[in-house]
């Protein structure tokens, strides 16, 4: 197996480059060994837990040796148990959570656990940012390299309000305190199709230049140095509400009365869930998470408890809303990292959508391997023997061809999808299907068709080759691909122009896949968002949420009823006291109950 794996290893490319000349490039095990040795050092320093270390290399070690008997196994198993027990309470929130949860659960807990629909608790790679964060957080002087943020694909939002619900549940919010809010709006702008579902998903934008922070008379509203989260220190806030006045997005929610859920209940819940902290105090010992106490301001926090690793390292880099979003419309990650989910997704939304829509799970590669056992290695046979059809395979390859950064290099959901796509393609390659060949690519619409004469030699001849030879070819092919991955993009235009001439002169040389064709394939399949924007960018707030599609115009108006795909009042969420309450779209309805001498008059309606 060795060499094939190398190019597909999540860190393989990067490390290969860095350690060039130090390592025997063809030997995968030396590469893995180096890396494991480094991380083992971090375990001894306490930067990485045994469980994380075990988990991180579990798959690789299994692949390499077929068994993983490392001394860290016990810690890993314990962590697995804890996370499954702790999260059991919130399972209902993630019912029907889509592919992501199934994938990850399969990966970590096997089919049995998948049956209960456990949420998408990160993956092997999720442990990586946690290290960075906690290290930075410790000294609390970030270098500005880290900024949590989101890319939200509004055209993928189906208005199910899962995010609103998950957020309210995670943070034990009072009714109507919709830190996450989804609204559907009418767009009077000419030319907008009336039928289009204009939805806006509105968390806090965690602005780099947050006006709320600027106007705060107490520094209660602050940006966390380590990761750019804009948070409220509930112990400092005086409740003047100026932050809410200054915020152009309307994301703040004041705690007008005593919150429904007590701090004791929250702490107890956190304890039950196996959190390291109480779900209120962050790594700097400041009370910034969960619902606000009376008389202070609250808003979407982007889950600092998770980002600090206090909910378990596998939840670093996730938020409650993002995990809960069935169509992966919310992509959360480090906005300063081009391999992060939001950046990868926003840079090519059609590709991100395709990855999400296909939702290839790791188990798929395994089942593929079984299906292919003993089958021929030509395209037709492969497609026949497996669940794959031509379109799907084309899309899988297209996501690889159009990758702008190394596939699977990030640490989020998208990166997981990429990993699984790579595993799938790798199984196919291992089986003998030459995914780099002109024949296969052109068959899948990812390259120009070869000349008919050559084509005549056809599949059969190649099929006649024995396995080893195929593998040999494949190896070369992979190496080439490695070298070409970057050049795909750069050479894009040249390639087009040259294509015709070259083919005549140099019949033997195949230029590789057609990036443009691959992109077209993705766009035809998943569509292209009509816009890429940030909300109210001219306010100078530098928001850290990128939106794709559905940009509301200046006259856009929220539609009645507020519920989008589903009405707010039809969704309930469970809080730490065990009771379920309904979502409320307009908080005033709740607050009016306590207003003394509510006349029913409204200055706004005059």
């Amino acid at each position: 197996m060795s060499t094939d794996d190398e190019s597909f290893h999540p860190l393989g490319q990067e490390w290969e480059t860095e350690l060039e000349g130090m390592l025997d490039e063809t030997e995968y095990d030396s590469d893995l060994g180096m890396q494991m040795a480094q991380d083992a050092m971090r375990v001894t320093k306490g930067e990485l837990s045994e469980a994380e270390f075990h988990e991180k290399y579990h798959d690789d070690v299994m692949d390499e040796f077929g068994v993983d008997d490392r001394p860290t196994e016990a810690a890993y198993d314990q962590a697995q148990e804890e996370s499954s027990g702790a999260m059991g309470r919130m399972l209902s929130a993630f019912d029907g959570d889509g592919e992501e949860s199934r994938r990850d659960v399969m990966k970590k807990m096997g089919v049995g656990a998948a049956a209960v629909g456990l949420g998408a608790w990160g993956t092997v790679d999720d442990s990586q940012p946690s290290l960075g964060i906690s290290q930075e957080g410790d000294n609390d002087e970030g270098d500005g390299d880290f900024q949590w943020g989101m890319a939200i694909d509004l055209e993928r939002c189906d208005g199910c309000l899962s995010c609103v619900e998950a957020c309210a549940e995670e943070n034990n919010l009072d009714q109507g305190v919709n830190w996450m809010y989804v609204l559907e709006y009418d767009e009077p702008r000419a030319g907008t199709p009336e039928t289009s579902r204009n939805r806006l998903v509105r968390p806090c934008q965690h602005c780099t230049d947050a006006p709320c922070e600027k106007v705060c008379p107490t520094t209660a509203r602050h940006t966390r140095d380590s990761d750019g989260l804009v948070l409220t220190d509930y112990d400092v806030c005086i409740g003047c509400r100026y932050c809410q006045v200054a915020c152009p997005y309307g994301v703040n929610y004041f705690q007008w009365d005593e919150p429904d859920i007590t701090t004791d209940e929250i702490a107890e819940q956190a304890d039950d869930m196996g959190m390291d902290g109480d779900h209120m105090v962050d790594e700097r010992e400041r009370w910034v998470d969960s619902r606000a106490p009376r008389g202070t301001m609250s808003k979407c926090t982007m889950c600092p408890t998770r980002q600090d690793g206090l909910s378990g390292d596998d939840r670093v880099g996730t938020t409650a809303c993002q995990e809960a979003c069935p169509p992966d419309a919310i992509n959360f990650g480090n906005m300063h990292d081009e391999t992060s989910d939001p950046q990868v997704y926003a840079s090519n939304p059609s590709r991100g959508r395709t990855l999400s829509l296909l939702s290839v799970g790791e188990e798929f590669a395994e089942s593929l391997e079984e299906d292919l056992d003993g089958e021929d290695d030509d395209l037709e046979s492969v497609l026949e023997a497996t669940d794959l059809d031509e379109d799907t395979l084309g899309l899988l390859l297209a996501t690889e061809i159009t990758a702008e950064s190394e596939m699977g290099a990030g640490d989020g959901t998208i990166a997981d999808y990429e990993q699984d796509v790579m595993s799938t393609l790798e199984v196919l390659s291992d089986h003998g299907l030459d995914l780099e060949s002109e024949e296969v690519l052109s068959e899948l619409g990812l390259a120009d068709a070869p000349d008919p004469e050559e084509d005549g030699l056809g599949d059969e001849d190649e099929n006649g080759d024995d396995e080893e030879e195929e593998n040999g070819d494949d190896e070369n092919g992979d190496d080439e691909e490695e070298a070409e991955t970057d050049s795909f993009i750069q050479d894009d235009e040249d390639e087009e122009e040259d294509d015709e001439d070259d083919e005549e002169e140099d019949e033997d040389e195949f230029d590789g896949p057609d990036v443009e064709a691959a992109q077209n394939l993705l766009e035809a399949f998943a569509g292209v968002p009509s816009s890429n924007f940030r909300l109210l960018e001219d306010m100078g707030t530098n928001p850290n949420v990128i939106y794709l599609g559905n940009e509301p115009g200046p006259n856009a108006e929220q539609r009645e009823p507020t519920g989008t795909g589903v009405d707010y009042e039809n969704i309930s969420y469970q809080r730490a006291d065990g009771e379920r309450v309904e979502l409320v779209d307009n908080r005033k309805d709740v607050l009016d109950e306590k207003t003394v001498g509510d006349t029913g008059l409204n200055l706004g309606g005059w």
Partner: protein
Amino acid sequence: MSTKSPTEADILRPVNNVSKQYFILFGLCTLAFGAFLVGWMYQLAEGMAVTGLSDWGSGGGVTWGLYIGAFIWWVGIAHGGIILSAAVRLLGMDRYMPVARLAELLTIAGLSAAGFYILVHMGRPDRMVTSVLGHYHITVNNSPLVWDVTVITAYFVLTATYLALTLRYDITRLRDDLPGYFSPVYDVLTLGYTEDEDEVVERMVWWLALAIIIMAPLLLHGGVIPWLFAVLPGMPAWFSAVQGPQFLTIALTSAISGVIIVAYAFRRAYDWDHIMTDDVFRGLLLWLGFFCLLFLWLQLQQNVVGLFAAPVSTAVAQEATITHPIYITAMVLVFATLVYIFAQTIRPSLFTKGRALVASFAVLFATLIEKLIFVVEGFLHPEFEIYAATPGAYFPSAIELLSLLGTIGMVTLIFLVVSKVVPVVELHAVEHLRGDHGHGHEETDETATEPEVKA
């Protein structure tokens, strides 16, 4: 017009006499203030949900409401003191000397009410000291709210110092006729007094007045208070450079009105016709007219710019404002006052003190509701006006409305109490009036006031 000469006995009358009316008024004010204190306690116990406020956005409400509107209003009224004092001390308009101290007291009382509103408005007033002062060195660099607290505090301290310094002269000279049971107060107020200091105090007071007169219009109501709103691009109803001048004119109209009302009340209660002469009221009324004119002129500016070809959000906000019954009412009241004031300058027979009083109340009411709608309108029509299914809805709750009565009671109580302790008319004023300065003659009115207005 009374021809009797003002005496020390005149200005000592409030200190040494109480009447049934005094006790009734005192009782009513205590009741109003006490009722609001109870309301506030309830608010502290239950949380601010007892107000009609909510979150703007999906909260379907407004974040700031009557409390903030009334806060601005009181700060505006507080300007009266310094305008009068400045007119007297810096510009030599001695005719207003009899009402100068009342006006200064109005500053103190008005600022107290405003400060009280800040506390009432807070979700966690108990943290004012620890959270605000504790981070002051950081927040003063960027938070307009901290600028506000800073300037208001400075204004209060300067005015109180000013008042304390000028009281020393009077109390020392009138000490024998002042009630003995307040001796400790007088001892403190006149601590270390020597006649030598009079001249020094005079100069100090002049400089203090200068400092305050620069600070009040430029930094307070023409500065930090409008900047609370004007610097926020997210709220097009507020985001405008005209807010500073506009706030200042609104403040000045309400300030002059406040002084007229207070002066009228004292004149009536203590037969001070010969001290607070009609001439004083005519002069004040003219000032009021002048500020009303500026008030309307600046509103015109904002409306023309906001309605002609403004960006969508600004146009929406301005249109909502100009068609709002409360805004229209306020503008009509101010305009009517302006018309009356100009009419009575042309035809002096139209002037009566009663009408001046009505005009003052009209302006005070107009400025109050204008401030209320100004604050509310910002939240109703933000730049990001997409929350149409959860539109801002607000009406002050009973407790919020009670706060108005409560603070008016509180301000009145301050006057009622202070007037029993110290003379509310300066001894200087009596001395001045006893001199051969002719006042109260109709003919001099117009010629005398015109240059003042220009000044």
